[in-house]
């Protein structure tokens, strides 16, 4: 085997591909990659390191974030990863604005542990909301330092200088000018920042107010897209190293099974066979070629013993199980004290009308488009992981702890990959690849197969939500009670060396499983008497189970919001009120200053959605339907996530002879404060909205009492082209209704667009048919059965 002596060529290609558009526009195609990175200024931040150790770049050094090149271009280094919303382009826009350099002359390197600072990676839709701030402050500081250098060089007082496109000149005499490249190109800033943490790191310069941002608010094309459509991008799946081999896992055929025997003779004469890897219940086969490993994993004869008791109920009995589990004592789980406002008991006692409803949301999965994967290279006693996991820094710590290596001997190179929307199985695959690579002493690529990914990926927990409402004589909600049960007793965190799947199979157990949460609704409704509580219940089997739970895009938001926003619709229907006006009324009550501000923004977003849709007030359901099989209806839902507000309206067609639901038209009004790149945001919102539609119409992980039976795109359907609406309108509100507060910061965007969609579809089905379905997904058979039961 040929050892890898330096930064692999593949990675050089990846990085140069990533900024190819920049190179082309800057006319720099002839500049070699090594030429860039060996410039003196880049030594600290991004020079290709000899194989280990890999210290963490110091976030208090300007040089760790920004490199100015002699040709007056800049490279930004940020500790973020991009699951596909184009955040790297957004960071370039913001940093170019603060640095005062042309956007086209910048590029951005993201998320690899040895050459970018530790900003965790991505998650929580916090890219712009939280993590763009240190970037902006550092860029502003770099600009300040460059201005000081120019003042000395040009012998012009600082206040008489102006800067544009990385050129500093004297206001009075344009001939007196110097470029950033001339001032510092190829050299280090050597400026130390202050701040205790990466989120507080700062220099002396202030960031610009919003009106002074130039690129921010424009829509330059995302820099990652060209290479994604011409086939030139090197993805994590494309890394090839000398001497590499391919591994495939052999998962237990039954949840909770114990591996009792492996017959290696069943595979060891197959072509390319390298080794069977086994420890505890972890089992994998390694072969020279990929297709050989796939074949060997299928052929390997292993004997498994079933667990003595069923690991979980069948999915058809899940909610009955959860109802029982809720009252069982000793159930592993967490119970939070109820959040109470006013006096709900009194409100219910004095109600003119009370409503009760229960909503069911099954397990839904990541089911990434391609299975989890990683490449691990153990050369020279180090470990380099090539992965698309969104939290590369956590992965480094996890792999180091799992293998018992010092963290600075582990490097994670983040590369693009399929759909990383939360705690996916990417980190499980990375630990598997790392362990096998160390055992074999060869680079190993692990790739989960389709059935493995769909069955064994982490899941968003099932929810059972009970809601009660007290309506006064005017039909208004005077009392409200929300009780959620969440099947989330062993919620997996990110990159935990004691909970990644391979550790579980090897017998590692946390002393105490970390219960997840039963999320509460996130809205700004002013309901005077309100009680909300969530409780976590567990399935019988907590470990080595395919029904393992973890963060899935907008964790628990779609579940809680489906229940809460369906129920508001039920209250509106009981009050014979228009569902939009009913919500507007709940948001019009006065409150403290910040509450009033949030409600004002909420009202603006709901009204923007209604205006785009052409909403005319009337109660649901629609009374007069045309003859024939197609019933049409409309539904609205709203949420307040963090500080981001989303209102969605769906127009659906329900076929009463087949039960098929088609969302013919969708509107999503969205306010996330300052919008950095409107077109990129529109796409992310469009896709998030459709992801919500997929979870509303199709997605459910099903299982019997032995194993998950959703194993591919037939047994686990998701949205397809045929489901796509005729029209989607995304309305970016980005407005502050208070003229005294015109400078909103950016809030989170991405996940928020999933939250209300399930309820909007359910409400639209009710509007069309008069039938309230309190269980997602709205698959044809479920809808048809509900319509038949109601005589529709």
């Amino acid at each position, binding site marked *: 085997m040929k050892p890898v002596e330096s930064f692999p060529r593949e990675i050089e290609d990846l990085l140069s591909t990533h900024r190819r558009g920049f190179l082309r526009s800057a006319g720099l195609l002839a500049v070699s990659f090594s030429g860039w990175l060996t410039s003196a200024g880049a030594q600290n931040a991004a020079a290709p390191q000899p194989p280990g150790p890999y210290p963490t770049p110091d976030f208090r050094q300007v040089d760790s974030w920004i490199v100015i090149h002699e040709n007056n271009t800049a490279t930004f280094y940020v500790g973020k990863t991009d699951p596909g919303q184009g955040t790297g382009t957004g960071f370039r826009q913001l940093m170019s604005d603060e640095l005062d350099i042309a956007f086209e002359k910048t590029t951005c390197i993201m998320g690899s542990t040895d050459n970018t600072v530790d900003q965790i990676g991505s998650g929580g839709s916090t890219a712009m909301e939280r993590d763009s701030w240190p970037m902006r402050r550092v860029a502003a500081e770099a600009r300040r330092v460059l201005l000081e250098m120019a003042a000395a060089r040009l012998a012009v007082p600082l206040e008489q200088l102006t800067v544009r496109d990385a050129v500093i000149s004297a206001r009075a005499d344009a001939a007196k000018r110097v470029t950033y490249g001339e001032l510092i190109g190829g050299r280090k800033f050597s400026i130390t920042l202050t701040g205790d943490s990466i989120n507080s790191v700062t220099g002396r310069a202030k960031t610009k107010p919003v009106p002074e941002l130039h690129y921010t608010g424009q829509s330059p094309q995302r820099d990652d897209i060209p290479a994604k459509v011409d086939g030139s991008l090197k993805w994590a799946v494309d890394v090839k190293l000398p001497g590499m081999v391919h591994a495939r896992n052999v998962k237990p055929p039954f949840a909770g099974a114990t591996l009792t025997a492996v017959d290696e003779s069943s595979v060891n004469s197959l072509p390319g066979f390298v080794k069977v890897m086994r420890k505890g219940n972890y089992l994998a086969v390694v072969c020279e070629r990929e297709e050989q490993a796939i074949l060997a994993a299928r052929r390997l004869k292993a004997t498994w013993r079933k667990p003595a008791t069923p690991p979980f109920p069948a999915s058809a009995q899940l909610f009955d199980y959860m109802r029982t589990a809720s009252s069982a004592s000793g159930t592993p789980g967490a119970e939070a004290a109820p959040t109470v406002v006013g006096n709900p008991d009194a409100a219910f006692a004095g109600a003119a009308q009370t409503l009760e409803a229960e909503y069911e949301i099954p397990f839904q999965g990541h089911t990434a*488009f*391609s299975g989890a994967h990683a490449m691990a290279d153990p050369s020279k006693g180090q470990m380099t992981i090539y992965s698309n996991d969104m939290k590369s820094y956590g992965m480094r710590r996890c792999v180091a702890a799992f293998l018992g290596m010092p963290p600075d001997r582990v490097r994670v190179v983040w590369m693009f990959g*399929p759909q990383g929307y939360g705690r996916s199985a990417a980190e499980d695959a990375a630990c598997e690849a790392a362990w096998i690579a160390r055992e074999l002493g060869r680079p190993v690529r692990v790739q989960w197969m389709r059935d493995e990914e769909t069955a064994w990926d982490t899941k968003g927990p099932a929810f059972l939500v009970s809601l009660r409402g007290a309506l006064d004589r005017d039909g208004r909600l005077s009392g409200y009670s929300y009780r959620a049960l969440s099947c989330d007793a062993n919620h997996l965190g990110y990159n935990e060396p004691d909970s990644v799947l391979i550790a579980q199979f090897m017998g590692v157990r946390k002393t105490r499983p970390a219960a997840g949460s039963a999320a509460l609704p996130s809205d700004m409704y002013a309901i005077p008497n309100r009680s909300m509580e969530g409780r976590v219940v567990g399935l019988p089997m907590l470990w080595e189970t395919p029904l393992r739970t973890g963060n899935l895009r907008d964790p628990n938001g779609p579940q809680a919001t489906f229940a809460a926003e369906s129920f508001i619709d039920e209250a509106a229907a009981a009050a014979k009120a228009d569902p939009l006006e009913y919500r507007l009324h709940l948001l019009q009550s006065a409150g403290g200053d910040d509450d009033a501000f949030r409600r004002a923004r909420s009202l603006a977003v709901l009204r923007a959605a209604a205006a785009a849709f052409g909403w005319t007030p009337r109660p649901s359901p629609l009374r007069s339907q045309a003859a024939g099989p197609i019933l049409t209806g409309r539904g609205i839902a709203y949420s307040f996530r963090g500080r981001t507000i989303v209102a969605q309206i769906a127009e659906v067609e329900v076929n009463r002879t087949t039960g098929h639901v088609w969302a013919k038209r969708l509107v999503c009004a969205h306010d996330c404060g300052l919008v950095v790149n409107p077109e990129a945001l529109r796409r992310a919102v469009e896709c998030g909205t459709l992801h919500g539609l997929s979870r509303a119409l199709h997605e459910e992980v099903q299982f019997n009492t032995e194993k998950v039976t959703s194993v591919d795109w037939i047994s686990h359907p998701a949205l*397809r082209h045929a489901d796509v*609406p005729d029209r989607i309108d995304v309305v970016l509100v980005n407005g502050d209704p208070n003229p005294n507060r015109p400078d909103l910061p950016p809030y989170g965007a991405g996940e928020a667009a999933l939250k209300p969609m399930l309820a909007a579809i359910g409400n639209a089905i009710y509007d069309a048919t008069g039938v309230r379905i309190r269980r997602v997904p709205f698959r044809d058979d479920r809808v048809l059965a509900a319509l038949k039961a109601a005589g529709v």
Partner: protein
Amino acid sequence: MSRIELKVNGRSHTLDVEPATPLLYVLRNDLGLQGPKFGCGLAQCGACKVIINGAAVTSCVLPVASVKGEITTLEGLASNGKLHPLQQAWIDEQVPQCGFCQNGQIMTAKALLDKTPHPTSAQIRQAMNDTLCRCMSYYRVQVAIKRASQRIAGPAPTAEEKEVQA
């Protein structure tokens, strides 16, 4: 192992692989192509699609020895250094999120437009329906196909013009 001859994107290759090896792994691992992707290995999602004899086919279950005809992959769509109009439309419309499925979307759309230069919305939905996207870029894919169709074949003929042609 046996000798297999393949013509891919205009270049001929002679390889020594098992005849039953799915074409996908040969393209990716022996020829170093990155356009076709492994998505499901079950011919269900379309990530691995290539064009053979004008049809977009799933390469993940296609034995390499059974391939008859020249193979075009995503890398082979551009000509003379110019992107295919579909690829350009994908950039203009900013279609991808993660982008992992877009090989399948583009190759399926290419086969569609080659046969049906002015597809209706219904024809697009039908032709594209087995090509999955987990980021849900479907809506924008359909918009981009219409944009590329206009670029390749000009505006769709009106009903009257169609009648005249008929």
